[in-house]
């Protein structure tokens, strides 16, 4: 029997071979070494659609998910509300099964939506230009580092803040390894950013990459840092969490040259880590050094507005080994999701999401820090200063009396996914749990977490 995904019958095949003028399909593979043909391949047998679905249900059922568990886990990926408009629109075949918009006359849908995405990212970050996406924030960070190296005359190294996401720092190292560009600054993850700059910032610095909110949830005005970085002639690169920008001042306010960020939170599923969305924006003057695709507005022969892929001369298709990046396939559909998300939430909605995150996280932190019982057990919220003032957005660190892994195992039994275990990446935060709270966490869930900590 024919396979449902291949609309050819044996009669078709015979007629086609005849038309081609060969006797059999194997004539079409005559140039493939005979002895290598048709190896035994160890795969399971074909599944019907029904059995496939059953298998997938079984597999999916082995994962704890956010419809059944209360999630207090962030660390770069966040459980935010996705309005129904997003899946409805991005899964329209016309967007979903199209390719990169090479032929603009029949790709205006993708082109205009990505142009709108670029515009919204500019508004959100305050920067001048944004590209049509990187794989994720980690690779956007690496590309930003490359861009800084290429933009700064004596740029020979990159400084990263220790509170930049550990995966981003690791990815940057892998990316820049071949080009022998050192990434410094996170040797001691307990050091403050100022101390790091004291130690490393010099005239050979191409860029300084700082997260805001940082990996531990803290937010601050980075203007003083930016000034130091600029004074040294380096580019100031900020990694951001776009939901936070619903309420906080944009990185342009503290003069960031490049902004990167993880766009997952803008309407994209958690999806066990991907596909996500690498946001990348920069100031106008660095525009032509930016990697990735750009959509530009222009006019057609009849004077009508239209959108095209532009400045392609920067890209690998044309520049080949002189391109600064090899990126080709990107995360266009995730950018579309972000675009639909921002369109649906709008100016007011994005602010409200941010404030809900802020309020709920601060409530959670307060409940934990003010619980005498938890204090006695040895729990302590780290992100509060001596005056007991909290300075974070929606994520904060709790120092626990025992291993976070152990606590999380107990929480999971109560259908709670606890916070990120900082033990490995931030050894100075012994038994540190990084707790994230979003608009998806109800007060009831937060109270349940606090209770569960008491009992765990």
């Amino acid at each position, binding site marked *: 029997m024919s396979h449902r995904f291949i609309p*050819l019958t044996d009669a078709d095949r015979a007629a086609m071979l005849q038309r081609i003028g060969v006797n059999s399909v194997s004539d079409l593979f005559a140039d493939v070494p005979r002895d290598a043909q048709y190896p035994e391949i160890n795969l399971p047998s074909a599944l019907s659609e029904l059995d496939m679905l059953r298998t997938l249900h079984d597999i999916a059922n082995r994962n704890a998910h956010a419809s059944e568990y209360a999630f207090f886990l962030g660390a770069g990926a966040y459980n935010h509300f996705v309005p129904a408009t997003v899946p409805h629109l991005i899964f329209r075949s016309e967007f979903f099964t199209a390719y990169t918009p090479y032929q603009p006359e029949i790709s205006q849908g993708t082109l205009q939506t990505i142009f709108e995405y670029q515009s919204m990212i500019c508004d959100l970050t305050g920067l001048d230009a944004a590209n049509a996406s990187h794989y994720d924030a980690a*690779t956007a960070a690496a590309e930003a580092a490359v861009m800084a190296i290429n933009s700064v005359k004596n740029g020979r190294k990159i400084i990263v803040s220790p509170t930049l996401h550990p995966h981003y720092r690791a990815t940057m190292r892998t990316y820049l390894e071949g080009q022998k560009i050192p990434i410094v600054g996170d040797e001691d993850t307990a050091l403050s950013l100022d101390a790091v700059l004291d130690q490393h910032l010099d005239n050979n610095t191409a860029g300084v990459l700082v997260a805001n909110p940082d990996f531990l949830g803290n937010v601050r005005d980075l203007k003083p840092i930016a000034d130091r970085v600029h004074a040294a002639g380096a580019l100031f690169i900020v990694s951001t969490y776009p939901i936070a920008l619903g309420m906080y001042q944009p990185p342009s306010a503290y003069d960031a040259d490049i902004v990167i960020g993880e766009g997952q939170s803008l309407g994209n*599923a958690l999806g066990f880590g991907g596909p996500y969305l690498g946001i990348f924006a920069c100031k106008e003057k660095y*525009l032509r050094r930016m990697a990735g695709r750009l959509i530009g507005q222009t006019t057609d022969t009849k004077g009508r507005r239209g959108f095209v892929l532009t400045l392609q001369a920067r890209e690998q298709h044309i520049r080949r080994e002189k391109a600064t990046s090899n990126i080709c396939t990107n995360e266009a559909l995730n950018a579309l999701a972000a675009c639909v998300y921002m369109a649906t939430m709008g100016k007011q909605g994005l602010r409200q999401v941010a404030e809900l995150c802020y309020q709920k996280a601060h409530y959670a932190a307060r409940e934990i820090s003010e619980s005498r019982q938890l204090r006695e057990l040895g729990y302590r919220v780290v992100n509060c200063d001596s005056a007991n003032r909290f300075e974070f957005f929606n994520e904060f660190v709790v120092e626990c009396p025992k291993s976070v892994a152990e606590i999380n195992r107990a929480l999971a039994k109560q259908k709670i996914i606890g916070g990120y275990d900082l033990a490995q990446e931030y050894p100075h935060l012994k038994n540190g749990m990084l707790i994230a709270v979003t608009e998806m966490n109800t007060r009831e869930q937060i109270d349940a977490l606090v209770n569960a900590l008491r009992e765990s």
Partner: protein
Amino acid sequence: MSIVANKPEPLLYEMSNPGTVGYSLPECDVPMTQLPSDLLRSELNLPEVGEVDVVRHFTRLSQKNYCVDLGIYPLGSCTMKYNPKVNEEAIRLAGFSQVHPMQPAETAQGAMQLMYELQEYLGAISGLPGVTLQPAAGAQGELTGVLVIRAYHLARGDTARSEILIPDSAHGTNPATSAMAGYQVVQVKSDARGNMDSEDLRAKVSNKTAGIMFTNPNTLGLFEEHVRAVNQILHDAGGLVYGDGANLNAIVGVARPGDLGFDVIHSNLHKTFSVPHGGGGPGSGPVMVRPDLAQFLPSPVVAQEGETYVFKNPAHSIGRIKSFWGNFLAIVRAYVYIRSFGKEHLQEIAQDSVLNANYLLALIRDVYDPQVPERVCKHEFVLNGTRFKKEYGVNTLDVAKRIIDYGYYPPTIYFPLIVPECLMIEPTETQSKASLDEFAAALRQIAEEARANPQLLHDAPHDTPVTRLDDVKAAREPVLRYKHL
């Protein structure tokens, strides 16, 4: 709706009406904290539009796009095949879509099992059993693979290898990748049969050669006839062989790159294994390597320990190549494609994609000029438009734009760079014979129009929301965002 699709669509910003909302959120259910007023932003210029207009805006825009679900999308090198709809059900399951990458491994065993099994399948299909699913696309797979090659040499103390050989027919990502990984690119010429020129290859290989990157079948749609010899030459010189698996569709199930002498290969899951292209992404580009190279793969990979799946860091890993574990939801789709074909049907993908390409070529080869007429092609073929240009004054861009008027997406054009006025056609195995007959008839008619009425082609396309756009203007004075008034 044709009339709606041809109407200009305003930008969302132009539809914005202050005070309108398309969202709703629950009330705050916790006692309030004072916001940090010194850190707040004063304005945020996002559009303000109701839900109905959000939906209509994007629905109308969607109709300005061609897509695989409307018909043949014969972009050479892109493998625009049908995307099974069962995947849309699958990836919406909360057990996939709402799983956090950092949650404890005990609570994500299903996801890890699926990844582990896909690693095994890709190892079996490629004949290269070390597998990472981390790369997000083909190009990132390339970078990963080349860094693995680099790590291999360095681990052996072989520090002098600074060059990567790349045939002149290669995709731009190959040289760009090599450069990113810190290598010099040395170009190898193609010969008249579309193979690598073996003399040129021999001349360029040396003890400075870290490896070679090539696609097989290559971007001419031709299988490298001396694949084993090429690989032997590299291996003899101490280099490794990187296979750009973008064209794996042509041989999947029929032959394994590992058996042909490749050491490292990536697979674009969004090509061979039917992850939808999403208007440019996301994709997924796993890398497969021979056993002794597995120690260099990116961290982490999924391993099995008894009944449990765990993340493991390879011993001499090149490090992370992105955050988290890879484009998981893309991985799910590839998993479905492979299991839907299974061991019984897998090779039909290659066989029928090659059959379709050769059949389509047979239907038009008397009116268009195949670049290498004497060979059968694999899953795609390349036409040379020089004669059209000379005789009719019609270039390949004109032909491509005219194809739009017939209701099809045009093939890839002007790639590979070594073929003048290149037109590169890949039908894939998911086209019926009837659809190829129709498409060929259109191409034949266009050839006739090129002769009889070239202006028709110069002015094409004729019934699209916009016609040819001013690229020069777009690049000279870039407008990359909506400018608030």
